[in-house]
């Protein structure tokens, strides 16, 4: 069979599963007695075990960051632009681990998996987990994989927040943190967006207080609305204008409330396809984790004090048209790191694509990323 994948792809990948019996104490005070994490790896762990990279996913992401699950797959993993042979996260040099977070809906223990205590789906009984909890669970996975210290922990958006938390919570176990299109905490406006998304789900008649699995239904309309709203905030006015403008589906106005503008059609499609691949309870949980994220809160609400705990090098990246996590929010992180006297480089990438730019193959962005990762690789002997 001819190789069906591009030469700079990691090719066919298979998810792995790790079971943990050691109870995990959560920030909320609740305890997960046991849990599973599903993850993928790309590249080879070197003999010194020094070339491990942890990829942290964002709100709607999962462990499938690069490559293909089958030759028939039309699309590769969500960060295939950045991960692969010769790419910024070069799998010829690094051993890349990408994990589905606790509470996710792609195989790791979460609302849509059975609670071993009851045999029923967790649903709304699944504890709300925080970024700190994710980092602790990822640390357990690192132990299981024999990685004492990550060459880098990398993520965009909510993933970047995990990288930041890693740097603060486990300074000895991380050599570099790459924090892309993130913030050190959410603004009121950001929490407000999350709240509207949650209300859309919570008020859907088919939500059934989160126990919709047993009813054989999904809160389709609520989840779809949540995604449509979220999607608008991930794009920019400019990119939506360029993509759709005021283009109509039919030639003339219909004087009704059906789909008339192309942008409406696009948003509905995005919402509908999201319902097919994502779980409403997980969406609630992920948005809460975002709202709660505030590493400075444990250190007298002083970000530099929190960041003084870190000892790794930092790369911070933002995108000019991102208004969900605007450059100003990344500059707050940079300022905190400068005040804390840490090693940091910061790049503000000119981009029209809004928050989603962090997933795009923008040449300057990939050059910055590549330059930093080459330095990481050299440093850790990858």
């Amino acid at each position, binding site marked *: 069979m001819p190789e069906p994948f591009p030469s700079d792809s990691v090719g066919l990948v298979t998810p792995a599963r790790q079971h943990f019996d050691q109870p995990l104490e959560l920030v909320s005070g609740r305890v997960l007695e046991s849990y599973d994490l599903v993850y993928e790896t790309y590249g080879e762990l070197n003999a010194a075990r020094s070339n491990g990279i942890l990829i942290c996913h964002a709100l709607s992401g999962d462990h499938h960051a690069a490559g293909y699950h089958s030759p028939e797959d039309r699309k590769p993993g969500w960060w295939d632009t950045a991960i692969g042979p010769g790419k910024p996260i070069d799998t010829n040099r690094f051993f890349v681990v990408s994990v589905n977070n606790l509470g996710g809906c792609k195989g790791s223990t979460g609302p849509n998996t059975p609670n071993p205590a009851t045999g029923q789906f967790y649903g709304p009984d699944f504890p709300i987990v925080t970024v700190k909890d994710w980092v602790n669970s990822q640390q357990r996975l690192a132990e299981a994989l024999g990685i004492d210290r990550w060459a880098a922990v990398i993520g965009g958006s909510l993933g970047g927040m995990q990288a930041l938390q890693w740097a603060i919570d486990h300074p000895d176990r991380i050599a570099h943190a790459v924090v892309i299109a993130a913030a050190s905490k959410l603004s009121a406006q950001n929490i407000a967006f999350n709240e509207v998304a949650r209300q859309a789900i919570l008020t859907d008649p088919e939500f059934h207080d989160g126990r919709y699995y047993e009813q054989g239904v999904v809160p389709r309309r609520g989840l779809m609305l949540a995604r449509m709203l979220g999607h608008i905030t991930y794009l920019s006015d400019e990119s939506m204008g360029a993509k759709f403008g005021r283009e109509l589906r039919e030639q003339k106005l219909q004087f009704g409330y059906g789909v008339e503008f192309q942008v409406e059609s696009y948003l509905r499609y995005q919402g509908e396809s999201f319902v097919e691949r994502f779980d409403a309870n997980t969406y609630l949980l992920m948005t809460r984790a975002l709202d709660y994220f505030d590493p400075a809160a444990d250190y007298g609400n002083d970000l530099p004090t929190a960041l003084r705990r870190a000892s790794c090098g930092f*790369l911070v990246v933002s995108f000019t048209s991102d208004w969900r996590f605007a450059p100003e929010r990344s*500059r707050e992180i*940079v*300022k905190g790191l*400068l*005040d804390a006297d840490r*090693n*940091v*480089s*910061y*790049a*503000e*990438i*000119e981009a029209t694509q809004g928050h989603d730019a962090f997933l795009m193959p923008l040449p*300057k962005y990939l*050059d*910055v990323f590549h*330059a*930093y990762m*080459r*330095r990481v690789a050299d440093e850790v002997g990858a």
Partner: protein
Amino acid sequence: MELRTDLQLISEWIRPGSRVLDLGCGDGTLLRHLRDSRQVTGYGLELDPDNVIACIDAGLNVIHSNLDDGLQQYFDDDSFDVVVMTQALQVVHYPAWLLTEMLRVGREGIVTFPNFGHWQCRLQLALGGHMPVSRTLPNPWYDTQNIHLCTFRDFEALCRQKNIRILERTVVDNAHRTSLGMRLLPNLLGEVAIYRFTR
């Protein structure tokens, strides 16, 4: 790699182990030299994305920002031993303010800039009646980043006005060499000046 003479002169003025901020650090040549030869730590501030990439490639700490906003946004008082700015004073919007900012965040400042009082400039303006174009100022007036050109005398007058104490001055030509003439008549014969100053 051979270091430009002006950068060589600057690095001799910086004590080993100092904490340095380089404003408009370019591709990081000076910071890299200071790190490798004088164990200097610190950051560069740079606006050009390709230069930012070059600095990251060199393993330097670089902050992507313009100088006018960057200093105020990022740096607290007395954060650095030395703040350096090479060949950027003439391109910033508020040079006088920037000089005081340099001495707010650092104990000492070092700047280099082209001398608009060089005899060739004077000759072109006086006899030719046109804006000078020279080796150090190669662009025509309508197509230059240099919006705040000055002579050495102007710079020193500004320092007096701002209570900035000049500690050292070296004057060189475009190839960053110095000569007896330049030492005797710097404002006429010098093309580039390097000043070290403090509060």
